[in-house]
């Protein structure tokens, strides 16, 4: 059990870290484009496509697992104060199970979509050349896959207080 928790938390953290790297690259890449254009009238025609298809996709999907483990999926706590604690805890398990199911289906669907894109080798046509973009489709099922794993883990964790502490120790630091 300990191994599974350690592995999942590590994986989700790593993916989220890659998402952070994409944010930094996005900032530098776009700024460089602006600077080159204004100082040297040189335009890197690939910037919008690289930003959209690689950086944006990475930052959108890769952190989903980390998000789930840290319980930062946005939800509406409208009835929180009405529901008794027992019921709320049971609901939490049900929610984690539903999440596993939905993320699992998303993983399945986007994985086959990515395979189709790979088979047709999809690219975008730019001014001078064709830029392949099919690789980036695989970031989607990777992110959803991690989220599925995280939701499944949350289900277990919610049922066993001991593993809850273990998980907390692996997510650690600022949970604010």
């Amino acid at each position, binding site marked *: 059990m300990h191994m599974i928790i350690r592995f999942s938390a590590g994986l989700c953290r790593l993916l*989220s870290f890659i*998402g*952070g790297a994409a*944010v*930094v690259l*996005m*900032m*530098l*890449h*776009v*700024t460089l*484009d*602006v600077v080159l254009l*204004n100082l040297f009238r040189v335009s890197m025609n690939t910037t*919008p*496509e690289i*930003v*959209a*298809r690689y*950086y*944006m*996709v990475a*930052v*959108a*999907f*890769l*952190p*989903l697992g*980390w*998000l789930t483990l*840290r319980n*930062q*999926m*946005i*939800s*509406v*706590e*409208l*009835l*929180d*104060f009405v529901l008794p604690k027992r019921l709320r805890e049971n*609901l939490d398990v049900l*929610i984690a199970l*539903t*999440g596993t199911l*939905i993320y699992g*289906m*998303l993983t399945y*669907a*986007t994985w*086959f*979509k990515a395979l189709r894109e790979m088979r047709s080798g999809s690219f975008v046509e730019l001014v001078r050349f064709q830029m392949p973009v099919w690789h*980036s*489709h695989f970031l*989607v099922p990777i992110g*959803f896959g991690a989220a599925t794993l995280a939701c499944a883990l949350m289900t277990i964790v919610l049922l066993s207080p001991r593993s809850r502490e273990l998980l907390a120790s692996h997510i650690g630091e*600022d949970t*604010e």
Partner: protein
Amino acid sequence: MSVEIGLWGVAILMGLLALRLPVALALILVSFGGIWAMLGWNPAMGILANTPYSFAARWTMSAVPMFLLMGFVAYHTGLTGGLFDAAKALLARLPGGLAISSIFACSAFAAVSGSSLANSAAMGRIAIPEMVKAGYRPSIAAGCIAAGGTIGALIPPSILMIIYGVIAETSIVQVFLGGISIGLITALSYCIVVLCIAWFRPDIIPPTGAVEPPDLWQSLRQVLPIVLLIILVFGGLFSGMFTATQAGAVGAFGTVALAAAMGRLTRDVIRRSLNETVITTSSLLIIGIGATMFTRFLGISGVSNLIASFVSDSGMSMMLVLLIIICIYLLLGTFMEPFGAMLVTLPIFLPLIDAQGLSLVWFGVLVVKLLEVGMITPPVGMNVFVIKNVASRYVMVTDVFRGVLPFILADLVVVALIVAVPSLVLFLPELVSGAR
């Protein structure tokens, strides 16, 4: 029959949200189930397979993480704090001075941020703890910032206005200009709300004197960096050095560079800013993906068409049509995300508005204002969720929703003003285009 499924979908969505299923998952689940029921398994799986990538992989969407990063870095390096301090130095002596200062700081920050979310996030971090410390009821402190954040989408640059301009095929610059006055009027209306509460309910907002206003000159010096950033972003934007989408990245880079020059860019700042940017971006985009699926589900079910024919076939007066349109936006705004809401409604409403001879620039500002009201109404209020994210130590989501209530009333007054006096929106665009 499909329409029935559509309406059931809305009801079930409400139920799932009330049971605390995460918003994104609820939207995805209902859309998938609904499309499955209407068209079968393949189209339903198709929606799951195709929507996520096509929603996220967009160049214009990159303004979201970039403006978020800018806000988070500005916050963690204390740059936005200067803005708040300067506003305090000028306004803290007023009743409810801290809240009024934070509203003005929101308005200033709006000039560098493209969305109300970034605005709420950045200001929420600084102002809420301070207000709570000064004896404000946490719900009103949070509500004030959640509402103040909406000014971010009204004062340009504004991602929503860019998207409206593209869909409505009208001048984005003109919509921008129309937004300036409404952004300022909104800020003013919020200040009046704060003053009223401070006057009648000192138990909620403590009267003046609770805080020592900082020294004016010192805080103005603190504000200098953020003024430089505003000059960088606005100057670059209007002199043609970069586009509104690029402005986010340049602004973020400028903020990082400035912080580094001031020696405030520590490893901890970088780590926290990136972590928060990544988590906020991802959790917002996944909701956007869910909302897009839900919009497609409603479109297929025919609920959207039902609304359109209801409005256009009945031969009602212009005022009544407008009133209904406003009510529909307020209703949709309760549970939909603004991009999706615009996509469903604009194809229906724009021809109606055009046929009535009303200005599309004016309508654009009205729609953005209405959608921004939706950002703070329950059960799905994105600004409120962001506030909850950045101030979870002080408030629950329900507290924030309670706190924004008086500001929503002010919003309704502003909406009525926009409808009653269209020149409030149009005088700036007309001034500029007349001068050309």
